[in-house]
């Protein structure tokens, strides 16, 4: 029976089937030939018409362009000595995105590179915090053998990138930590702010703090490039082409690196700041703040424990005391206040009687001693508070505050630093605005001896001293290539300055408070002023025989040589127990400027007493910290175990 019964019946025979077969096989053969032609046409189209496009795609597959981090510009001191330079370095990084088995990879690296536990902890934290494409540093400063050991195992360590590059080096170490800051791998926020592929190039670091951060663009330079042939899995097959990097520009500072290093060493175990300014042009020769961190270890990616130690230290090594440390200036502002008195018409020979203090309003203000009959010269030399209470009462606060401002207190200077705290020059208007309170005579009395609301940073004290010594409105500089502003003379009678400077000379050479501040250098006389800033009220003790953090700050400002002032210096020792902690430091720093050999002889003896150089002491301290931590955790474990058992 047929399926399609309706139509006319076809007679089907073997012969007609054969004809159908021939016809249909021709049809299929033709269709196949058509497909063949279609394929040939398609291939021609791809290989000829689109050849250029696909060739480009093939090249972009094959060739990988990697950026070569530029060598960072040097930071050099006024004599061209490097403060921050670069050294050739073998490093190993991890690209988190490409890690296949993070734990196993880390274990293997720890074994290959002998990584200590706290470093591994640091790498783990960094890995967690990084975005996948940003490299995390595993180790730097490797020996060639270790670098090679990692390199040959690369096929088994996906995500690990050994890099031969440059790393930042700070020859003076901790001595310049606060000044130059440090460099580090760009973090997620920094990359968001500047989405430049260079920032996530392995081995590239940006300035994180201090001058390194301020001069990032100048120091950075232009990256080089390397074209390499890579496989689909990212293995480099061979180098194709290389373009060299353009190193960053150097930044030349007014700092004298050797002086800076000396001052940092001289601060020893104390927490404090030393600033030296050039009285001729305002150059900052030394801006030391100790204790500090070692920018070398920060730039290498600081270990977890080392950072914890810095953070927990009560001497706050992470704070730049020169610029963001604020202290009551104490008696160091007395010479300047005398200028205000002189300008208000007070005769320097006029005497007052110090009976151990004076009454202001209904309160008795004490002096630290009973000075008897006191004129201006004696008031400066012996730091008689009563003289200042009385004279300031007579002329009022406004002229005193004006004189403070004339000397640069309360001012934020135009310096390339990330942070400055500019303190307070109090006056009645300020008090009303800030605390909604009327100014009283007691406020004037407190301010006249640099206590109360008066707050300054150590740099301001150095600027004050430099202006006093030179009679010029000096502005501090950190860079030699910026045009130093032409300094105008201060609106002060030169005779007044003579009087005050003579008083400061007598602090050291007369019957003064710092007679041991004389320089062991012939023909160079120093003039200065001591200061003691109370940390807690005298009712809590005398400021000396109390726990460290309640002790008075010790201050000293000075300039030398007396007859032709060249250097102005301020020293602040936190909780030094009085100015006695400060002026020997100032003396030795000034000695270094006039007779280096003499100063260096003395420092060696001092350091032997403290337990070694800055680096040796830091190392010992870190070892002690780790031992302490280990002991503490062991203690915890043993105290916990009974609980667990119970």
């Amino acid at each position, binding site marked *: 029976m047929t399926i399609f019964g309706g139509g006319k019946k076809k007679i089907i025979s073997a012969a007609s089937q*054969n004809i159908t077969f021939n016809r249909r096989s021709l049809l299929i053969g033709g269709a*196949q030939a058509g*497909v063949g032609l279609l394929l040939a046409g398609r291939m021609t189209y*791809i290989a*000829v018409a689109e*050849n250029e496009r696909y060739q480009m795609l093939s090249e972009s597959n094959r060739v990988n362009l990697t950026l070569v981090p530029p060598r960072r510009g040097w930071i050099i001191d006024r004599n061209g000595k490097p403060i921050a330079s670069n050294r050739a370095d073998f490093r190993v990084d991890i690209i988190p995105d490409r890690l296949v088995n993070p734990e196993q990879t880390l274990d293997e690296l720890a074994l290959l590179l002998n990584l200590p536990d706290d470093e591994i902890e640091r790498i783990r934290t960094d890995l967690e915090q990084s975005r996948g494409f940003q490299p995390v540093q595993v180790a730097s400063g490797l020996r060639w053998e270790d670098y090679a050991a990692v390199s040959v195992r690369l096929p088994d360590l996906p995500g690990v990138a050994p890099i031969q590059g440059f790393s930042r080096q700070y020859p003076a170490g901790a001595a310049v930590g606060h000044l130059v800051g440090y460099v580090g791998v760009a973090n997620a926020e920094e990359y968001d702010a500047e989405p430049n592929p260079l920032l996530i190039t392995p081995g590239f670091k940006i300035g994180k703090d201090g001058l390194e951060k301020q001069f990032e663009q100048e120091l950075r330079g232009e990256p080089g490039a390397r074209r390499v042939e890579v496989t689909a899995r990212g293995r480099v097959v061979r180098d194709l082409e290389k373009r060299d990097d353009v190193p960053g520009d150097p930044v030349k500072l007014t700092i004298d690196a050797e002086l800076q290093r000396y001052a940092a060493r001289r601060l020893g175990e104390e927490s404090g700041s030393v600033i030296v300014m050039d009285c001729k042009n305002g150059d900052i020769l030394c801006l030391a703040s100790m204790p500090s961190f070692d920018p070398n270890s920060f730039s290498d990616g600081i270990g977890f424990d080392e950072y914890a130690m810095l953070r927990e230290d009560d001497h706050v090594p992470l704070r730049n005391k020169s610029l963001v440390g604020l202290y009551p200036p104490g008696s160091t502002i007395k010479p300047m206040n005398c200028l205000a008195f002189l300008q208000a018409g007070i005769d320097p020979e006029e005497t007052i009687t110090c009976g151990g203090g004076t009454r202001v309003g209904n309160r008795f203000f004490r002096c630290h001693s009973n000075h008897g009959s006191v004129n201006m010269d004696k008031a400066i030399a012996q730091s008689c508070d009563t003289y200042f209470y009385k004279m300031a009462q007579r002329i009022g606060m406004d002229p005193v505050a004006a004189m403070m401002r004339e000397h640069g207190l309360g001012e934020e200077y135009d310096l390339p630093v990330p942070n400055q705290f500019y303190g307070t020059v109090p006056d009645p208007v300020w008090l009303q605005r800030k605390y909604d309170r009327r100014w009283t005579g007691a406020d004037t009395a407190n301010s006249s001896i640099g206590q109360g609301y008066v707050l300054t940073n150590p740099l301001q004290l150095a600027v004050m001293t430099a202006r006093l010594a030179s009679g010029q409105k000096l502005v501090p500089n950190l860079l030699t290539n910026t045009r130093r502003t032409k300094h105008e003379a201060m609106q002060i009678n030169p005779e007044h300055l003579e009087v005050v400077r003579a008083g400061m000379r007598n602090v050291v050479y007369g019957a003064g408070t710092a007679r041991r501040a004389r320089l062991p250098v012939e023909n160079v006389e120093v003039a200065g002023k001591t200061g003691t800033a109370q940390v807690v009220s005298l009712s809590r003790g005398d400021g000396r025989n109390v726990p460290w953090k309640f002790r008075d700050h010790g201050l000293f400002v000075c300039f030398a040589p007396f007859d032709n002032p060249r250097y102005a210096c301020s020293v602040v020792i936190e909780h030094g127990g009085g100015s006695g902690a400060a002026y020997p430091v100032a003396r030795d720093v000034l000695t270094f400027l006039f007779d280096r050999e003499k100063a260096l002889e003395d420092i060696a003896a001092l350091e032997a007493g403290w337990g070694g150089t800055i680096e040796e002491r830091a190392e010992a301290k870190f070892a002690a910290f780790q031992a302490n931590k280990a002991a503490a955790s062991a203690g915890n474990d043993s105290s916990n175990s009974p609980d667990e058992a119970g």
Partner: protein
Amino acid sequence: MQIAFVPQPLRAQPWGIILLLLVFTGFGVAILYSAAGGSFTPWAGLHAVRFMVFLIMALVISYMPEELFKFAALPVFVIILLMLLGVEILGQVRGGSQRWLELGFMRIQPSELMKPAIVLAVARFYSSLPPAMIRSWSAIWPLLIMMGLPAALVLLQPDLGTTITICVGAVTVAFLAGLPMRLFVGAGLAAAIAIPLAYLFLLEPYQQRRVATFLNPENDPLGSGYHITQSQIAIGSGGIDGKGFLQGSQSHLDYLPEGHTDFVFATMAEEWGLIGGIAVIFAYFLLLRWGWRLSLNAPSRFTKLLAGGLTMTIFLYAAINMMMVMGLAPVVGIPLPFLSHGGSSMLTVMICIGMLMAIDRQTKKQPQTSLSSGLLV
């Protein structure tokens, strides 16, 4: 051309086609040598050895008489169908998809063997069907069963490419056998409706993705579109004369996936360019022309249908593979005969070649019948 001093058994071999296959496979060996980065291991050497073994096998097959093929057609079909079922059951038991049977000395992929087996079985069926019944139901339902059972089993594996090859092979024989044209037109229309439905309900998600990717590979350049994109980059960057032997960067740097198996054409095209590609297409043209000539000149209805079906099977391998590689078909995992490295597919293709040679030999034995139908091509 007769050379008097060559012994008869040697003269009796189909030298033309053997030479073509030797040159073709030799080219394949060169490509695989390059794909391995200039090495005979792991692919090129094995490829050459396998081909020689299978060529001898094909020559042995070529001595088998038509009656043996006819006799064995249905039993062989049933055995392979049972093997397919076995693979499916094993897969169910062990979990996951499995396509081969482990025989100890080699792995057999029954779905590959089904490609010539279905052609053999369907040709056997139509050759024994009386001409008068060709337009009846009896001509259709056995085809549907013979085609439907293996197709369903292979689709379950799931292997879309092989399913298509099996169905098209069977349908081709039926078409050549003279089933009413209206059936094919109707089936074509039905397929046009059914394919979108099948896409939605029959295909696995990964197969759906492959089809979607095929329609727009740039959508997913690193996922499933990666194969097609990299393959076209390899072919396109080869240009007219290629990058040169051993100079292909796409294959040597591992950008081209499966460069020694399914995407061997791209490996070839990158180094040999359009010239190499046209040469490959021309080689297939010669092979298929040989097949169709055999089919037209074959001495019996069975051998005619068989030759046509086998030629179609070889064509399907080559055409689907090259269309896939050039972005004209979705990625379905079909190797390119004589060039791709892989045992099962070469075995299948050489079985087809062996049977075609057998038909050739039988045709030459009876030169008198060839005049009646050998008028074309």
